[in-house]
């Protein structure tokens, strides 16, 4: 009997059994219906339902995908997340009943079979499972060896914006106190670091000035470089509602994203020249006396210098540089300036450039001269990407230049405060930023890394370079949920847990600190990051004695003025608090800068900026501009979403968006494999022909390592103030690929 026959018989038996069970069910229901009243049936069913519900765990917690900060109830049976449903209204102040596909439905990664459940140590035979004690000893020896021989600054830590505030505080503390280095950074470097740098300089805090109500109640939005419906769906939902009810929506983007289709004004800009069109709008508003003179007089400094600096951005010049025609600049300027209140929203399309800080500074200037900061329904609103990049990636200070609460590590008083609290010496010189760590490692200045919850082998610019650096490290510790692409290079792998398996806090994109409550026990021997760090510090010889994340919050709030009044008890009672919240009686701050700016003189610093070319520019050889981003049904490098069959049904590979005219020029049909080459690398991806990008722009999402778009990007094209890489502009050329690319052929086979 062949295997096929066997499976035929087995299949028949299976079907027969299913049919028999169905018949039993039907007969039983029939008998019940004939003999019992509907009322009795209701009561029987309800008692079964109640009993089974009682066996489930229902926990309110905060979403672990993007940073909108949705809260909801998670239903689990102790092993799997079964469903996500709305929680009590007062516990979900940001989203109410709203959700998106990822936050509501995408949890298969939590119970995925390939979760790491035990520590692994690399031996000659590959990875070997070991006890936690052995793993900790191996980490201690590995780190200590490099520390002894090359000093603490030969080590670095990459912390995780997926982890809680409490855990990120410990990651920063671990780097300073245990390792003795300021070489600690996180994924904010690859996303909104230019936002933080620019806003800190202009208005004082590297964070959104708005609260959620401002985003819902404004009269006008200027949204740029944000594919909001796909990357921050619940914010997009609020924007769409408001535009339906009459608000203006101005969108500038190189791709005509879905939000542009809902917009009252859309302009297609050239990737890499955002400061130019923003300055053009600012110039138009000043030229036509549409600015808020009283606000500028009372609340800002530097207006005359700004006025002078924008003179070069005449409509003609802006068109020449950005491709946006004068009438569109004028229309956008009129809409923004005549609105009573306007929200300025952006994500990485504005920041991931070799001059991202300039772009964000130009945006902040525009918001200020129109008087749109610090009042209801108006403000600066970067949409943060990772669930906790605002809190864990910024506020908690796992940063090379800042201690928790954006306190400058170069300031002796600040250092002294933390040195007293942590009983250690903190170096005064800034450490390396993430992208610089990889460049420094190439020069052997960094020899050991401890990477927590960051898939650097896929997410760093120019992954060939990142891979070489990771494989050349003397010692690499990776702490993650999975044996991901980065962990493949590790000497020790420590199994961590998802946010549904632990407690703590996340801070959302509007500075709202919210509770994360454990809904399930940790899988296998995996542990929360805060437990791993605590035990490791103890093993190395430090007296860390945390037994609950609430204790860590208690410690950090006393060192971090903006979190000074935040405790877990208060968060549970008050449903979240927005920082700054300086003391226990303070209600938190829903909107920043109502009275004054967080600058030395309380005034906003209007800061002249020009414009710069992107570091990589198209030429005859590489005629197209590649820009990168996300799609709705995936998340970052896919660690969480590739394990969700429902998600991969939608998107099982990256693809390249080509304008129909571009595709026709090259004889490329929809679905054809296309070779995309930059000056540093190449990939082959299927074509998706769409009018979204302009004719000179191509777009590739960043979700799959097999076709990693970061094989094309450059590791050394960095924004100077923030060291953020230029993911959004790479010169490329395209050619039809002979033969088939792996992902597309797989898809066609499975589709037959």
């Amino acid at each position: 009997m062949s295997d096929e026959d066997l499976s035929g018989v087995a299949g028949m038996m299976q079907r027969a059994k299913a049919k028999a069970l169905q018949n039993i069910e039907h007969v039983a229901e029939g008998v019940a219906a004939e003999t019992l009243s509907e009322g009795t049936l209701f009561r029987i069913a309800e008692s079964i339902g109640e009993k089974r519900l009682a066996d489930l765990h229902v926990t309110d917690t905060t979403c672990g995908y993007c940073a909108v900060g949705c809260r909801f109830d998670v239903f689990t049976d102790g092993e799997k997340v079964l469903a996500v449903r709305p929680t009590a209204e007062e516990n979900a102040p940001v989203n109410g009943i709203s959700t998106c596909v990822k936050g509501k439905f995408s949890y298969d990664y939590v119970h995925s079979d390939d979760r790491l459940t035990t520590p692994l140590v690399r031996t000659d035979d590959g990875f070997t499972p070991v006890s936690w004690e052995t793993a900790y000893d191996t980490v201690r020896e590995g780190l200590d060896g490099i520390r002894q021989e090359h000093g603490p600054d030969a080590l670095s830590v990459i912390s995780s914006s997926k982890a809680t505030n409490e855990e990120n505080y410990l990651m920063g503390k671990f780097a300073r106190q245990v390792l003795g280095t300021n070489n600690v950074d996180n994924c904010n470097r690859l996303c909104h670091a230019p936002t933080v740098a620019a806003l800190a300089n202009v208005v004082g805090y590297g964070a959104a000035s708005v609260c959620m109500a401002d985003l819902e109640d404004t009269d006008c939005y200027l949204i740029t470089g944000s594919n909001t419906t796909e990357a921050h769906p619940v914010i997009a939902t609020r924007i769409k509602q408001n535009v339906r009810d009459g608000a203006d929506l101005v969108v500038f983007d190189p791709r005509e994203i879905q939000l542009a289709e809902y917009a009252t004004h859309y302009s297609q800009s050239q990737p890499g020249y955002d400061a130019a069109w923003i300055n053009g709008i600012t110039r138009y508003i000043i030229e036509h006396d549409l600015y808020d003179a009283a606000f500028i007089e009372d609340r800002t400094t530097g207006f005359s210098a700004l006025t002078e600096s924008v003179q070069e951005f005449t409509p003609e010049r802006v068109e020449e540089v950005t491709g946006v025609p004068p009438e569109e600049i004028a229309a956008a300027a009129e809409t923004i300036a005549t609105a009573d209140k306007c929200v300025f929203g952006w994500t990485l399309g504005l920041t991931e450039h070799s001059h991202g800080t300039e772009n964000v500074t130009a945006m902040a200037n525009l918001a200020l001269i129109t008087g749109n900061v610090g009042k209801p329904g108006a403000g600066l609103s970067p949409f943060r990407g990772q669930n906790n990049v605002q809190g864990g990636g910024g506020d908690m200070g796992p940063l090379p230049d800042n201690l928790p609460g954006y306190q400058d590590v170069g300031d002796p008083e600040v250092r002294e405060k933390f040195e007293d609290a942590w009983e250690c010496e903190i170096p005064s010189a800034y450490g390396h930023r993430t992208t610089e760590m990889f460049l420094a490692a190439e020069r052997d200045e960094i020899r050991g890394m401890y990477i927590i919850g960051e898939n650097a082998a896929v997410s760093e610019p120019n992954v060939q370079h990142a891979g070489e650096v990771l494989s050349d490290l003397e010692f690499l510790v990776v702490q993650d949920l999975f044996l991901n692409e980065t962990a493949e290079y590790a000497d020790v792998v420590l199994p961590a847990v998802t946010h549904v398996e632990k407690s703590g806090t996340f801070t959302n994109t509007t500075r709202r600190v919210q509770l994360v409550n454990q809904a399930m026990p940790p899988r296998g021997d995996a542990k929360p990051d805060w437990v791993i760090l605590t035990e490791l510090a103890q093993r190395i010889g430090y007296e860390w004695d945390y037994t609950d994340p609430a204790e860590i919050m208690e410690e950090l709030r006393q060192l971090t003025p903006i979190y000074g009044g935040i405790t877990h008890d208060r968060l549970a009672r008050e449903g979240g608090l927005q920082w700054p919240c300086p003391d226990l009686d303070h209600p938190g701050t829903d909107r920043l800068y109502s009275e004054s700016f967080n600058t030395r003189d309380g005034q906003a610093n209007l800061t002249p900026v020009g414009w710069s070319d992107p570091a990589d520019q198209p030429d005859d050889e590489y005629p197209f501009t590649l820009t990168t981003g996300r799609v709705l049904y995936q998340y970052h490098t896919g660690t969480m979403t590739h394990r969700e069959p429902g998600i991969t049904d939608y998107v099982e590979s990256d693809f390249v968006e080509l304008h129909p005219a571009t595709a026709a020029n090259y004889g490329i049909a929809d679905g054809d494999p296309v070779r995309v080459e930059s000056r540093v690398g190449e990939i082959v991806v299927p074509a998706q022909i769409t009018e979204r990008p302009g004719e000179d722009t191509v777009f590739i999402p960043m979700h799959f390592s097999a076709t990693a778009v970061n094989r094309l990007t450059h590791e050394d094209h960095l924004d100077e103030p923030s060291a953020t890489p230029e993911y959004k502009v790479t010169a490329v050329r395209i050619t039809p690929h002979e033969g088939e690319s792996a992902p597309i052929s797989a898809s066609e086979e499975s589709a037959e």
Partner: protein
Amino acid sequence: MSTDDPTPRIPEIFEAIDTGTASDPSLPRDESARVTVDGEPVELAAGATVLDAIQKVKPDSLPALCQYDHPDIGPRSECRTCVVGTDSHGIVPSCSYPAKDGMAVQIDDPRAVEARSVNLDLVLGNHNLRCTTCGKNGRCELQDTAIDEAVETPRYGVFDDRSAYEPIDDTSSFIQIDRNKCILCNRCVEACNDIQVEGVLRMEGSGADTRIGFQSGAETMEESTCVSCGHCVTVCPTGALVEKGFEDATTIPLPGFTQKNSVGSVIEASDRRRRPVTPAKRDELAKSTDELDSGTGSPDQGHAGDGEDGVPDVDPWGGGA
């Protein structure tokens, strides 16, 4: 230049999305009201309904099955399980009826009690009462209401003829539709169009054939323009829309006693790949307009059994078909 036009312009795309609340009665927004409920006086802000008044005095004393506490959903007056008596206007659906100054409301007006009972039985008469295998068992608003209202034997029976059942639509990766459990409350349609502003769901057909359908004319969830945001399944009061993975979590734990077995027929997901990955909204809406023009997928024709022909093959990637 467009800026010369001072009137606010709503982008066309919004007009292409059917609003779920199009038929809702509008409430006066300008005057506050003082009414009595069973003799007890209540002060109400402008725009309040009779149900708002009742909730202040005797919370949760009425079924109000189609009502949902969200400003963008309803009131819809679909099920009329919330009717009450008034001195001035006879019996009225409290969920949508404006609270008018001076009105006297009697919850237990005998005519209203009878109407509520009849209306609840009408809902049950068109509902497949297969609770022990239902994804909402123990969490169902209809089940709770039937028990609260002490329904023993519904006047019009229940919808138990399996041969008349529509197949379960199990084609979405995330949301299961069992139209046999739908009470046509319209919450999902409003959640889709008025909260998510997505334009996927609609009510289609009329009379006994009324059903949840898709604005694009698609026949199944996977062929629809759904973005799986989950608002519809969140607001559904019964087992008509259930999160997949949760459908058998509170059913009777016996082999074979599953939601799919109970209904008997299921449309499973095809191997069709969803393309394009980042669809343009206007293309999706244009597609649905074409279909409406050509007659396929029109509200009166859309029903199970039309087959895949109702949806043109727009999948240039060669998947499916």
